[in-house]
């Protein structure tokens, strides 16, 4: 089929005049609309300045849906809205109603340079390049390549002092044998009787005198205490010996990405991390039962000291928190 007739481009349709093009009254009306919008904008600015000066900054009103709202902030915002929106609406009304709306045709030109220009460019480039003689002087070419290749190393090296080496920091916590558990917030010692069955508490290790608690340490030391009925546990003998009278302690720092594992479901004995919903079964030593976490929360062995306060039996046996390359995860 060689002679298929296709539809032809009929060209730009004839321009249809708007009302304001032909009717002076309509044009006048459009002009007034535009002017009114610009005037409204100026009023908006005046209102904004007035709100800044005359409205006290601590007045709140309750607005349905929005809730308790600061009157001054809101008035400033509404004033600014009117001031800017009306300039925009005015300008667009002006363009649409009064400025010429005849479509204009312009030609496009191919972006590609003319063959002659391309040839001239190649010639110029070769000629200039030849003057530098980079092709004839391989020694310069190679040493320049070397210099440019390594020059970026110095800024990289200069960045080295951004921070210290991790050393053993990620593997250690402040917990060790005999460290007392203190409540957070509060800092009070804990007796087993302070925690009822089904209750949860966040604790931190007691600090040696003169030591200050830092966020860096909280990020590794935070521990959750949960008290269950002892018969609810489903633990091996060693892990059971790490609990005390139904109280079990886990690192609160998620083994996935380090968020605080804060949601405890009393009925199911599940701990849930609000960040990515990794779910841990408290009765089975915080085994992962759902979500992206790949390791259980490290368990802290606890007991009581001679005065009857809860203490750590030993430090954590594995690093707490999210994984990293050097972490030896062969035993959890």
């Amino acid at each position, binding site marked *: 089929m060689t002679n298929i007739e296709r539809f032809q481009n009929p060209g730009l349709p004839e321009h249809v005049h708007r009302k304001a093009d032909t009717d002076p009254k309509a044009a006048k009306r459009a002009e007034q609309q535009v002017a009114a919008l610009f005037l409204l904008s100026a009023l908006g600015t005046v209102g904004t300045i007035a709100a800044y000066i005359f409205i006290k900054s601590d007045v709140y009103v309750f607005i349905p849906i929005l809730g308790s709202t600061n009157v001054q902030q809101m008035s400033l915002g509404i004033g600014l809205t009117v001031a800017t929106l009306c300039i*925009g609406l005015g300008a*667009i009304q002006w363009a649409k109603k009064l400025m010429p709306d005849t479509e204009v045709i312009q030609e496009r030109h191919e972006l590609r340079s003319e063959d002659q220009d391309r040839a001239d460019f190649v010639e110029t480039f070769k000629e200039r390049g030849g003057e530098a003689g980079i092709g004839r002087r391989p020694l310069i070419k190679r040493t320049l390549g070397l210099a440019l290749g390594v020059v970026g190393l110095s800024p990289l090296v200069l960045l080295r002092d951004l921070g210290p080496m991790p050393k053993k920091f990620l593997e250690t916590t402040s917990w060790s044998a005999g460290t007392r558990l203190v409540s957070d917030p509060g800092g009070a010692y804990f007796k087993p009787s302070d925690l009822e069955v089904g209750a949860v508490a966040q604790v931190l290790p007691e600090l040696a005198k003169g030591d200050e608690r830092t966020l860096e340490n909280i990020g590794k030391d935070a521990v959750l205490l949960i008290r269950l009925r002892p018969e609810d546990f489903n633990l091996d003998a060693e892990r059971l010996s790490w609990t005390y009278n139904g109280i079990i302690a886990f690192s609160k720092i998620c083994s996935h990405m380090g968020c605080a594992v804060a949601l405890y479901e009393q009925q199911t004995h599940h701990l849930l991390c609000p960040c990515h919903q990794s779910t841990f079964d408290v009765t089975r030593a915080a085994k992962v039962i759902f979500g992206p976490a790949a390791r259980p929360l490290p368990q802290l062995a606890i007991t009581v000291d001679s005065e009857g306060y809860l203490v750590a039996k030993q430090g954590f046996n594995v690093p707490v928190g999210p994984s990293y390359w050097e972490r030896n995860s062969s035993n959890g």
Partner: protein
Amino acid sequence: MKKSERALGSVANYVDERTGAAKWLKKNLTKVFPDHWSFMLGEICLYSFVILLLSGTFLTFWFDPSQRDVVYNGAYAPLSGVSMSSAYASTLHISFDVRGGLLMRQIHHWAALIFMAAIVAHLFRVFFTGAFRKPREFNWIIGVGLLTFGIVEGFLGYSLPDDLLSGTGIRIAEAIIQALPVVGSYLAFFAFGGPFPGTAFIPRIYTVHVLLLPGLFLALITVHLMLVWYQKHTQFPGPGRTEKNVVGYPLMPVYMAKAGGFFFIVFGVTAFLGAVASINPIWLYGPYTPGQISAGSQPDWYMGWLDGLVRMAPPLETHAFGHTISWNILLPGLILPGILFTGMALYPFIESWVTGDKREHHLLDRPRNAPNRTALGAMSISFMIISLVNGGNDIIATHFHLTINGIMWFTRIGLFTVPPIVFIITKRICLSLQRADRDLVLHGKETGRLVMLPSGEMIEVHEQLTDEQKWTLTQHQQPDALPAPLPESATRGLKGKLRKRMNQAHATQIPAPTLSDLKELDHH
């Protein structure tokens, strides 16, 4: 000559004698821009960027990017006497003690959300209309760059206040860095100046947020716009429009008034949102401490898909030879997004390789006329939406009384099953729409007017389309008009077979009706 005209003339003369600007302006003031509502999307990006610069500058006058410990004693009573970082305290100060401070914070945050939303909408427009084709591939790549940097910039922005929610976000970012094989813990310690959270991170990301990335944005946006200017804007097909012309309105005065006016409208809408719609009420969250968290922790929407992917990742870690590799972090947090964004950046080249089309394109495709591309786009969007749904699984679960586990499994399975289904359905819809177009051109519009012929037969009167409408519906390139059915040599080997297969899929089309078809039909 009036006095004002003379004054203006002498200023113009002064400038022109020193710059020669008149020649350039003479030509460019009459430059024509095609008009279509979807061309505004890119403008929204630009204008919200300007709003971000203005409101952000305002915020820097009071914000103190420091993690130094201070005791708060400002106007917000519930946190009075609480120890917190200076960054958080100064954000509270901006929100409660600086007149208009809260408004500016909210305008800044809303503008950021609009900026990202407009970038994504603009990306959709450019993708589905094929505006990325030759000669505009560079601009597509710059656009993908702007999107990527925008995500980073937004994340750094909402991390600055150092509240409990944003601190949790930083904790997750730290875990991603730490998960990198071999260098992870070192990079994390370098980035944070020591162990997490330290006191160095917020001052550092502040410099990146207010200097480094905005500078990069300015440079990329400038090149992006210069290329649009130089290559001239694409236009939708229609009567009078060809590959060789631009039909639209001149820069001065119409386009200037419309674009300039539109800036103020975007500003007005953002200011309105900032005035009435509370966003990121950081005073409710409290200062950051690693031992606490608030339920329903959510990132901003443009990070939501990433968070959703991390949430649905399988619990996979490799433990061997005393080392740990966290696939549950690397796979959804780095590898998958890396593949997605690289694929997106390379798409123009992939499509041109598949079709063998090396010509310039200035007329846009109607999405239905490129069924394969449209289906690919819809497929990608469905992938993102499913990830995003899982990023909000906790919120969805509480609002609709569903279980988180249920949503998680739904999205885990849906991530692999829904996109292919969406691809097939979208492609079918596109082809059906092409058929409908063909029908419309050949048989005209149904008028709903029933006429009884003398013979007693009832017919519905069809109204022929105008020549303009017929042209718009039939002007598109047909696959048989593609420059080359792939040469035999290009379809050999595995790569060649893949190319051939994709080429065929890409060329599936309903033949556009021609005048000959119409004549033949009239004949009967």
